[in-house]
């Protein structure tokens, strides 16, 4: 009986172990075990290396800077979207999602092309930029322009939820509006802010695309680029890569722990007493213009400039000549869509890998979510935590683990060097999305549904087919699309684990920048972002439909 009771847990736990836990243990094992004995030699070597201290410092400072910069960008945006007439412009949120969903390496390539000497900036304004862009500040700027939407959405939702009795109470009893803000609103925002800001910090540490393109140019090495270099640069240093992965892993775990403490300590019950904001908003002309100006400035910088650069580059015939209509051509797109060409093959690979990974991840995520349900029992909590691991552990650590695990001599069979390897990697990296989307869809269901299930259904496949799938379908599909979009753009894992002669659109773009024809790479980038934007719109529609039906 006990075994039967535990069967689903055991099966799910074995699945997640093979996917995520064993690769992580492989990293640990490779670092600490040598010839069968415990050894701290390799980690000691790494920590004694001067470059590594520099790399750590670079990574952590970058994280702090980006955290500060995204705050400066996102907080005013969140206030504008909740306190001014722009509160009704829901479509803005979709626009703000675009920079976040744009692959970061494409964004930074766009900025490099725009700001470099004789780049598009100088061609348009016919003078040099009044500041130097190619330094740490430029890198922080590019990464913040990619990550701010995440913080913005969290802050905006927190502000919206707060729009109730607290606001009214401060209006009645409080003093100066500014004081009200500082004494009431900001402390209430704190827990949401800390959570989002620390996630931004972790995301910055885990980021590979921008450091690999822009950071390399200014000689700013971080954890991810160093780990990648250890694994792909001659002479190869696997134990260096695993040791560095462990350092990165510990840093992220620590941050996650701090975030847990803070959010537990400073969470207030702000969900209760929600009342719709009754008074219609009347802004002065000045505030209106300033709001519109600020929103357009941010959108222009985060979407306008990088998209302009990549689109123009993909259309240029001769890159050494100036911008002019006679120098434009569509031939790079023609080459891209020639059936059988390597670029077309890469695009198809990306689509099919992402499709397979998203589908399998959606299935596993669905089962996980059903089991985790409300996470009351210990086993449910354990599974909940493990399934969300890749949210707090940088992708490159998993990739290192997956390479070691699937190459280990102990395995009877391996999928290494087959196309299942990238698919598996995408599933491991992006499983949290499908789990979370299904879980949130599940939590929105009214308890009466569970009760009626218990009373009326006698066959469990009926529950599955006629209750869960239709009700959770939209959540699952949204998770599927999310996984699909980010699998399609995944770079560092693909660079390290793709079998020979297989390329994806992400590695294709990267290698065009490194070795081949940048214009062709940028044409591929345009196609990738178009597909991404299409998916964002579809997802938005799905979610709106889901809200209507439930």
């Amino acid at each position, binding site marked *: 009986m006990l075994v039967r*009771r535990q069967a689903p847990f055991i*099966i799910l736990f074995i699945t997640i172990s093979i996917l995520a836990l064993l690769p992580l243990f492989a990293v640990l094992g490779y670092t600490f075990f040598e010839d069968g004995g415990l050894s701290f030699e390799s980690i000691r070597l790494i920590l004694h290396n001067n470059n590594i201290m520099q790399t750590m410092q670079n990574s952590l400072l970058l994280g702090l800077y980006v955290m500060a910069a995204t705050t400066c960008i996102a907080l005013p945006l969140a206030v504008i979207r909740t306190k001014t007439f722009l509160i009704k412009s829901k479509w803005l949120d979709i626009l703000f999602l675009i920079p976040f969903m744009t692959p970061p390496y494409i964004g930074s390539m766009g900025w490099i092309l725009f700001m470099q000497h004789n*780049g598009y900036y100088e061609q348009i304004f016919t003078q040099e930029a009044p500041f130097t862009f190619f330094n740490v500040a430029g890198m922080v700027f590019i990464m913040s322009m990619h990550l701010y939407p995440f913080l913005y959405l969290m802050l905006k939702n927190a502000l919206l939820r707060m729009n109730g009795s607290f606001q009214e109470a401060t209006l009645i009893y409080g003093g100066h509006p500014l004081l009200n803000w500082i004494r009431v609103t900001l402390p209430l925002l704190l827990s949401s802010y800390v959570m989002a800001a620390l996630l931004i910090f972790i995301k910055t540490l885990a980021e590979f695309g921008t450091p690999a393109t822009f950071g390399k140019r200014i000689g700013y090495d971080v954890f991810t680029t160093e780990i990648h270099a250890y*694994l792909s640069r*001659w002479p190869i240093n696997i134990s260096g890569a695993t040791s560095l992965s462990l350092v990165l892993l510990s840093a992220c775990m620590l941050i996650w722990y701090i975030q847990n403490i803070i959010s537990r300590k400073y969470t207030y019950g702000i969900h209760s007493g929600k009342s719709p904001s009754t008074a219609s908003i009347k802004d002065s002309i000045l505030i209106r213009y300033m709001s519109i100006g600020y929103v357009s400035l941010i959108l222009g910088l985060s979407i306008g400039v990088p998209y302009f650069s990549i689109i123009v580059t993909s259309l240029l015939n001769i890159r*050494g000549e100036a911008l002019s209509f006679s120098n434009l051509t569509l031939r790079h797109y023609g080459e891209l869509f020639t059936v059988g060409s390597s670029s077309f093959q890469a695009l198809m690979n990306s689509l099919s890998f992402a499709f397979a990974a998203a589908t399998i991840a959606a299935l*596993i995520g669905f089962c996980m979510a*059903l089991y985790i349900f409300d996470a009351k029992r210990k086993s449910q909590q354990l599974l909940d935590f493990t399934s969300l691991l890749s949210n707090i552990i940088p992708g490159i650590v998993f990739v290192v683990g997956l390479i070691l695990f699937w190459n280990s001599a102990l395995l009877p069979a391996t999928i290494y060097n087959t196309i*299942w390897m990238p698919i598996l990697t995408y599933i491991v990296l992006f499983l949290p999305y499908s789990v979370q989307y299904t879980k949130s869809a599940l939590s929105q269901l009214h308890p009466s549904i569970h009760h009626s299930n218990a009373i009326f259904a006698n066959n469990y496949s009926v529950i599955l087919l006629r209750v869960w799938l239709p009700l959770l379908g939209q959540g699952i599909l949204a998770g599927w699309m999310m996984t699909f979009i980010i699998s399609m753009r995944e770079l560092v894992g693909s660079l390290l684990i793709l079998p020979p002669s297989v390329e994806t659109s992400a590695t294709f773009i990267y290698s065009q920048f490194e070795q081949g024809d940048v214009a062709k790479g940028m044409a591929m980038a345009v196609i990738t972002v178009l597909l991404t934007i299409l998916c964002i719109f579809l997802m938005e529609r799905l979610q709106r439909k889901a809200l209507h039906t439930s």
Partner: protein
Amino acid sequence: MNKLKLTTLAGLFTSTLLLGACGAENNEAAGSETAADNLDNMITVYSAGPSGLAENIQEAFEEETGIKVEMFQSTTGKILSRLEAEANNPVADVVVLASIPSMEGLKTEGKLQPYEAESRDSFHPEWSDEEFYYYGYSATALGVAYNTNQIDFLDADWSEFSEQEWQGRVTMPDPTSSGSAVDFVYGLTNANESGWDIIQSWMDNDLLVAGANKESLDAVITGDKDVVVSAVDYMTYKAKSDGEPIDIYYPESGTVISPRAAAILADAQNMEGAQTYIDFLLSDTAQEMVAEAYILPGNQSIELNDRAALDEIPTLPVDWENAEEKQIETINQFTSMN
């Protein structure tokens, strides 16, 4: 009770899924087994560029011999790393590297298989191994490429790029990702006692070291920088023929010629196919394709395509003896400078 059954169901669902995945995996394994049975019909080649040429040769080879080629294209550094990472599961049959010292390295580690190709005699003897472990089927010379929109004419020697005039205008491929750049740094510092001083003076003059060969050439094509030192010449000729504002010359004090060599790996699963591939690389058909891509063919009787011939390029007197051992040292010293 209901929830228990529900979770059982969920579990069953997952196990079906897992079984499905296993089934798929088995299929995959079975697939590679049948491929293993037909080893005669497939070889795996790890090739360090040049991308257009490698694909053309692959196509022509497949057409002529009916052997299918799985090609992994990358840089010399990445291919070496990949070979090492896959030591437990060797996949490649043939390896093509853009650096002879790296090839020598593989040879001393016993990773190569010698093969006496028929047409070996018509090839440049200095580019290939005396014991037939590898064949230099083509070569590139490393020159100085410059943007013709910014500079009308240039014939400066290496050391002149440390002058004030060139501050922040010069770039160079990164030796950690470009095999030919390692050869260049090694050659310059080996043939010239003040070689490291010259490189240091470039660094002091804000030399940009970023990415592989194409990346640094692109910086000059777009006008970000004005000059590439250690520019791979065929890429420059190709860009020039595409109409880009760029030209190349070889400094008078001499430069480094970097042969691209092909070899068979000792772990090759399809030895016969690999030998056929080497034969094809040395054939006139492939050698003409090499010349067509503005690269110096290993067979010197092949006609060149609109580029400087080998005897027109001044070379540095480099001692390549034991270069492979000093190569890592060279990379380390280079990366520690800035």
